[in-house]
């Protein structure tokens, strides 16, 4: 059953990533260079929609709170984020969109995957040094959410209700998605009004 769900949800995720343009390095590059923020608006709306549905569903008992999976916060999360961001901008791929781009017929994505496997292997070998450095030790409570979610096995960073904050944050993401302009700065080339 679980394998069937993996196939259905995975295929849907891959197809949607392709349709929103996330498998195309040109859209990723223009989003990160802030000259075409359509993809950013898509992603913000998606995160917001997911939040509202998930926390709303948890509040009415439709969604099992035990399905939540919160990762630990540690300094390495930020350092790793910096590295991923740099490589993401340079190549136009991240792990998920890279494998989807390769499947869509992009040969450069195959090189991205090869580099990615080598990079993951390099981390597997150097992991003990990171572990010893203390940069993998929990900060801000480790596996925490902004507020404590009733029934979840994770602590809240604040004493506020995790469900309510989740819905409010979700709505905030949706509002930002709508307010965000199609492009910021640049201005070398005027965008024709639609």
């Amino acid at each position, binding site marked *: 059953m679980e*394998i069937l769900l*993996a196939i259905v*949800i*995975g*295929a*849907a995720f891959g*197809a*949607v990533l*392709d*349709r929103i343009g996330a498998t195309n*390095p*040109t859209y990723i590059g223009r989003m*990160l*260079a802030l000259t075409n923020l359509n993809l950013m608006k*898509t*992603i*913000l*709306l*998606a*995160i917001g*929609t*997911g*939040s509202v549905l*998930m926390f709303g569903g948890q509040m009415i008992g439709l*969604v099992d709170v035990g399905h*939540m999976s*919160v990762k*630990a916060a540690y300094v390495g999360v*930020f350092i*790793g*984020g910096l*590295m*991923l*961001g*740099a*490589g*993401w901008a*340079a*190549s136009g*791929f*991240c*792990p*998920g969109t890279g*494998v989807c781009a390769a*499947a*869509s*017929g*992009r040969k*450069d994505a195959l090189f*991205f995957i090869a*580099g*990615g496997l080598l990079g*993951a292997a390099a981390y597997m070998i150097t992991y003990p040094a990171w572990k010893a450095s203390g940069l993998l030790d929990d900060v801000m409570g480790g596996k*925490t959410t*902004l507020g404590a979610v009733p029934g979840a096995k994770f602590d809240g960073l604040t004493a506020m209700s995790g469900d309510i*904050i*989740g819905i409010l944050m*979700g709505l905030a993401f949706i509002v930002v*998605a709508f307010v965000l302009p199609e492009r910021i700065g640049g*201005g070398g080339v005027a965008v024709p009004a639609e």
Partner: protein
Amino acid sequence: MTLDWKIGGVLLGGVFFLAVLLVKPIGVSTQFVILNGIIGDVVNSELVTKTDEGYTSTNAYLAKSGGKYAKSVANPLNYSFIFVLAMMAGAFASTQLRGGLESSERSIPEIWRNTYGNSQAKRYAVAFLGGFVVLYGARLAGGCTSGHMMSGMMQTAVSGYLFAAGAFAAAVPVALMMYRKES
């Protein structure tokens, strides 16, 4: 050619919701480690071994957290690994349904061609190096754009915001520098 952001955003959010409703939040980058483990275990069968309690590995990273990665390496037909293979199938089908990828895009995307020209070697080299840095960083961070940024922020995970802050702090300056012509 791409979906309107309002439609695309609701569809993508719907997939995130479906994942957490039925199974668990989406994540991808761990599977690069699992594939490495599968390849490594073929080359050296001592890499992952069965124990009384489950699985372990001579590699400290595969052995961490009670050997959960070692277990996935030993059982590749697990949810998360199949999920990534299905993503590829979904993206392939979607591309075919919209008429396939333009031949000019197959080796070099437009944004790269506009600034750096037609050298495939140059593009492939940067894609390879980019992949190395992206996956090294993702494993250091414990997740990638899917697991940390999308699934994490959707759940109001503190780690998700921390990751997104790092990712954009590097990605925007690098993109502005590399693709100045696009701005």
